[in-house]
């Protein structure tokens, strides 16, 4: 197979299969899509092999000359994420073979989302990215209100409008860039931007595009759409899992990509680093206040994305690859937690953590999966979270860094002490409902992946991205003691503080920003980013 002529097939395969097989009955259609996904996984892994040990794959669409054609690029940043997306979707299809909320339209939209995400990762053209992000946004809005119960239509409408404003910002920014440079290709932009006579002219389009990307990546203070979309009461478990596992990462990926494009002219790394830290802290503070288990997980996604962004913009190489590794890890454990949370909610008929007890006894496989996810996300030794957090921490210098990392870890552990309450205790009913065996299989496989990513952390980073770092320090005595200490403090804080300030937490939980306030935040973000860049760019 010639890669440079067939990259678009990876993008098109899911959606074409979804369209062609639409006449099949539902069960057959579901299995067809699953097998197509297995094929896509195989191709994506082969592609990754080619990129990792061969060379970057570039395809110019429709044989137009370079810089005019829409370019598809698979490089070391995008190829692992494409493979991750394909594996993730294959897992969710297997997970939901018996789910009754899915009909054929839902399945079709779901594979279309997969194509949009893979396309976003692979495209090397700014306008193409814009179109695919808009496509993904429309599909997600439909998927989160699919069951149309409770306030899901409101959630979807808010999601759609906030993101549409962000995309209008992006379109205007792209227009500015096109006027300045006359190209839309990312590589061409990177080449032409430093040649501009007046580099300050790039400030406005930079701020506009980055505001849009910051909304997509859910950075502080623009994350208020994320918990609504990811933790929407009516969104099926697999939609939440995909949104938190893969779709948010597309925003982070674009942040990295575009920072590289603008890099020679504008460098706002300290701004994004601080923003990542603040996002992380605010995310776990809000997560602690939640009662609904899906919302705990959703706010936690905000927190972890903040950590990833912090790692990526620390300016240290170890922390950068730690952040890239955390993208994969977070997809694994957060996807796992959302999938199992969906099953738990279905089983207990409740979403409140106070009403769910004894998951480990009632559904051992799901319980073990959840436990593995919790251990992964809190950075317990031997699990994947510990490795990537260790790498990110290595990039932090001085006392502030140590304190910041300890604070984030403490917050994460604290909110998951609250979450894991549902695992223990005595269930009201011992007999679980009858379930598809694939549910347990997929949960355990994801859990195993979390464990494997921890046991072989250093080698995995070396295998996926290339740089060799020793992860041995993540298992040093000091680390183990720190983890035990964090856990003890978190358990103590949970029982002595969090449980006693219920009324305060209720007021935090029920507080909601209106659409107008969110728009004001977006404008403020745009203005402050522009101001920051204005004063730092020479």
């Amino acid at each position, binding site marked *: 197979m010639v890669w440079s002529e067939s990259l678009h097939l990876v993008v098109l395969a899911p959606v074409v299969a979804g369209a062609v097989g639409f006449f099949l009955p539902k069960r057959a259609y579901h299995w067809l899509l699953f097998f197509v996904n297995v094929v896509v996984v195989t191709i994506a892994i082969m592609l990754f092999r080619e990129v990792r040990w061969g060379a970057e794959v570039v395809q110019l669409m429709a044989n137009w000359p370079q810089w*005019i054609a829409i370019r598809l690029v698979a490089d070391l940043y995008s190829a692992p994420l494409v493979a991750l997306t394909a594996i993730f979707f294959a897992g969710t299809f297997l997970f939901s073979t018996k789910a009754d909320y899915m009909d054929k339209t839902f399945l079709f939209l779901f594979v279309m989302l997969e194509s949009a995400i893979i396309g976003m990762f692979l495209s090397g053209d700014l*306008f193409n990215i*814009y*179109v695919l992000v*808009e496509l993904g*946004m*429309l599909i997600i*809005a439909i998927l989160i*209100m699919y069951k*149309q119960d*409770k*306030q899901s*239509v*409101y959630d*979807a*409408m808010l999601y*759609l*409008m906030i993101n*549409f*404003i962000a995309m*209008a*910002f992006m*379109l*205007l920014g*792209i*227009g*500015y860039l*096109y*006027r300045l440079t*006359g190209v*839309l290709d990312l590589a061409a932009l990177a080449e032409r931007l430093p040649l501009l006579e007046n580099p300050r002219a790039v400030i406005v389009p930079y701020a506009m595009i980055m505001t849009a990307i910051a909304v997509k990546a859910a950075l502080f203070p623009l994350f208020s759409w994320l918990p609504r979309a990811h933790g929407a009461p009516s969104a099926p478990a697999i939609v939440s899992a995909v949104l938190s596992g893969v779709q948010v990462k597309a925003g982070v990926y674009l942040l990295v990509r575009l920072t590289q494009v603008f890099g020679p002219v504008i460098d706002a790394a300290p701004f994004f680093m601080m923003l990542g830290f603040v996002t992380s802290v605010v995310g776990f503070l809000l997560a602690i206040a939640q009662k609904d288990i899906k919302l705990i997980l959703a706010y936690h996604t905000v927190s972890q994305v903040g950590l990833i962004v912090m790692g990526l913009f620390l300016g240290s190489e170890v922390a950068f690859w730690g952040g890239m590794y955390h993208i994969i890890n977070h997809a694994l454990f957060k996807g796992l937690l959302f999938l199992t949370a969906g099953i738990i909610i279905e089983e207990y008929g409740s979403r409140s953590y106070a009403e769910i007890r004894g998951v480990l006894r009632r559904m051992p496989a799901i319980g073990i999966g959840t436990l593995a996810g919790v251990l992964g996300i809190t950075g317990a030794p031997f699990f994947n979270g510990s490795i990537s957090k260790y790498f990110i921490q290595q990039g932090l210098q001085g006392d502030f860094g140590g304190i910041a990392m300890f604070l984030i870890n403490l917050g994460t552990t604290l909110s998951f002490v609250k979450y894991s309450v549902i695992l223990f205790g005595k269930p009201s009913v011992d007999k679980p409902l009858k379930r598809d065996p694939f549910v347990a299989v997929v949960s355990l496989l994801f859990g195993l992946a979390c464990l494997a990513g921890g046991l072989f952390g250093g080698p995995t980073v070396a295998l996926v991205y290339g740089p060799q770092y020793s992860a041995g320090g993540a298992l040093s005595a000091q680390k183990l003691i720190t983890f035990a200490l964090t856990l003890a403090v978190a358990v103590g804080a949970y029982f002595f503080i969090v449980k006693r300030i219920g009324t305060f937490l209720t007021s935090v939980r*029920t507080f*909601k920003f*209106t*659409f*107008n306030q969110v*728009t*004001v935040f977006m*404008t403020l973000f745009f203005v402050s980013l522009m101001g920051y860049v204005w004063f730092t760019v020479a």
Partner: protein
Amino acid sequence: MAFISNLQISDLAVLLFFIGLYGAMSQRNIIKTIMSVGIMDIGAITFFMMANFPANAKPPIVGTPVEQMADPIPQALMITAIVIGVSVIAMCLAMYMRVAYRYATADWHILTRRLEK
């Protein structure tokens, strides 16, 4: 007054964008905010269309001499953007209808208060 006569369509398009943004920040009526968002989108599209547009350029269709042609790329791209914009606005309005039936209000503030806890 030279300032006003020097204004170009692309400057006005940016102005339109920010008028839309102001509307989205300030209007409590849901329909008006949807309209504001639409105005923002139109502003961005108009700006993009006017990018690299030489004075008196002709539409890039068969028969126009190449040197008089306007840059065809923005025009081709903006057709896509217009289609996307229309479909998103249509979907926002359809969703608003559902919300209005359920909560019987067209005001963001009242709506936020009436949501299920």
